[in-house]
């Protein structure tokens, strides 16, 4: 199969055209993850100058404005994003050096108290074992965070942090409720401001929040974090940037068990997650919904992407991006083909 352009032509205008102070919600399910779409957002914002496909990203070149991106990831480490972006031809480490990109790690040390993290900058394989019980100590749901992703990722990120100090900012959840979220917000905002310091007029800052619902799931009401607090947290970050992209899980149990139509009892996490996700969809300018085919697995289709207008959409002029439903296929080499139903 031929290699695909980094930005699927059908999606280019959706990915590169971000309205001021808008929120884009990317919802994913277990069988259709949003990583590829997040990478395309990264590429649409950062990749045009370094790639040969200049014709695709004419948007930035026409007005001469540069884009900066801050990526806050709660489910994936720096290694993952760096490797995946490299497959698209995007060198995130170099862009971070050029102050165009910043990565905020919300995974590696989220529940490590900051003192232990600073006192033990070099974690070897043997100390990982001792830190694992530490992780579950502050009341995190055991087995909720993917430990397999943490364990191999840790030595890599640690050595990387030594190489490039300041490239990876790590978030820590310490304390309780809003105070803890405020501290994390301050961390992210400081990273945003560091980027802003090198910004010229007309530059746009894009914030990508990858799966903040993990934070909600891992803390919950016992630690004073609920859907309302999370939504407030997102609002606080939104105020600082030009546009925000938010990815979130929308699997059926997390959304529909707490729905008003069903009268079965739902667990707190189901209620909170549904309230958070639906509330975000109400605020969003557009909602990108990823799901698998209803008819089962197919050899040449990975999933369905439905682009809808969110609750925050308002009918304004020069908005020609309609709602549509597309199919996508992720190839073995990481390239993504996006096409309409019935097309190939």
């Amino acid at each position: 199969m031929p290699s695909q352009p980094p930005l699927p032509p059908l999606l280019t205008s959706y990915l590169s055209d971000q309205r001021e102070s808008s929120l884009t919600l990317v919802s994913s399910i277990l069988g259709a993850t949003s990583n590829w779409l997040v990478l395309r957002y990264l590429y649409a914002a950062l990749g045009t100058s370094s790639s040969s496909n200049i014709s695709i990203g004419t948007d930035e070149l026409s007005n001469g404005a540069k884009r900066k991106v801050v990526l806050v990831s709660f489910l994936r480490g720096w290694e993952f994003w760096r490797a995946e972006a490299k497959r698209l031809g995007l060198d995130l480490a170099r862009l971070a050096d050029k102050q165009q990109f910043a990565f905020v790690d919300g995974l590696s040390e989220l529940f490590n108290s900051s003192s232990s993290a600073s006192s033990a900058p070099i974690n070897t394989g043997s100390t990982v074992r001792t830190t694992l019980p530490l992780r579950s100590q502050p009341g995190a749901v055991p087995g909720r965070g993917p430990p397999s992703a943490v364990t191999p990722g840790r030595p890599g990120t640690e050595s990387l942090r030594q190489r490039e100090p300041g490239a990876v900012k790590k978030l820590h959840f310490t304390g309780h409720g809003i105070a803890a979220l405020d501290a994390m917000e301050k961390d992210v905002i400081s990273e945003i401001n560091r980027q802003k310091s090198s910004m010229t007029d007309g530059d746009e800052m894009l914030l990508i929040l990858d799966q903040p619902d993990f934070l909600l799931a891992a803390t919950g009401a016992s630690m004073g974090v609920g859907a309302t607090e999370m939504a407030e947290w997102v609002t606080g970050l939104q105020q600082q940037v030009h546009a925000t992209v938010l990815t979130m899980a929308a699997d059926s149990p997390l959304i529909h068990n707490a729905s008003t139509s069903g009268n079965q009892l739902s667990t707190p996490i189901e209620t909170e997650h549904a309230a958070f996700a639906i509330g975000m969809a109400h605020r969003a300018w557009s909602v990108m919904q990823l799901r698998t085919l209803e008819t089962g697995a197919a050899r040449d289709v990975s999933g369905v992407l439905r682009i809808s207008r969110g609750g925050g959409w308002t009918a304004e002029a020069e908005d020609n991006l309609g709602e549509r439903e597309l199919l996508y296929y992720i190839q073995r080499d990481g390239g993504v083909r996006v096409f309409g139903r019935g097309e190939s």
Partner: protein
Amino acid sequence: MAPVNLSHRRTHNLLLISKLLSLRDTASPLTLLQDSLEQPATPLIKEYIRRAKLSKVHVTFIAFETLKKPDGVDAFVSTRRKSPADIAKEVAAAYQPAATGPSRHPGFHLPSFLGSFIASTGPSAGKADASLVVTWHQDVPALPQQNHYSPSPLPVLTYLATSIITLHSFSHILAQKAARDRSLAAPVFGLEEEQDGVLLGRLDKLAGTGAAEGIVLELEHRRKSGRGVLEWYLLPPASQYSPQHVKEVVTLLDDNVLYNPPMEPDTNPDDDEPKSTFELGLTDRQRRDREGVVLPYFDAQHGDGPGEGGRILYDMGEEDDFDEEEDEI
């Protein structure tokens, strides 16, 4: 409720919605807008603001989840990390220059906010002659209560509200009506589909052509007398009229051609004949003659004798040509 005839409803209820949307004479001090992901309240809020501008009403926008100040709003109050008392104070300060103001709080799902906010705006709404428009997202699940003995926010709001407007998407209403007319189960959209990974069902393609655009408003208004009014309205999309349009744009849903298509001619009992190039009807004379025919079984009942009953009685018409030979056979 007894069916009120359409022209009566047209005059009275259109007047009512016009009064409510223009916030005249504080017809409704607290209006509750119940929206969903399938039909957000933003277009209706815009319509409120547009009408307020036309009648030079001061608009205060209390934003719980909006970042950018919408067009035409006089005062914008952001509520992030503010106590309910502070918000009330800020809103009261914004009231000072002008008299009236509708305000909006989207995402009103914080019980502690709710109670104190209603209590605190109550007196200020009274003295400043204000109307409050509140948005409630129907599909956001209710979060667990801190106090189990207090009612949840939605019942409190519906109890307090003087009018409740529930928003529906017109294309969905049409699809559901089409299914109902065929005695099929009504289709559901978006979250109610309960499909994995689907939050929103709205798609341009589903809506079809521009004809089905618009918002259906299901209004429940409580009059001062205590009598309730239930009515369904249609608000056309904002692109179909100019922002300076003064005349009423809202129509009754029953008056819409797509929702209530005009009676087709064949359902009219007066002319139930099939269409053809032949004249299949009878003239008056033909009908008279036909009624004059005595059918054989009437004659047979006389019992005049064997062989007599049941014979064919035939009166020669003037156009009949008597054929001797045929009669002999």
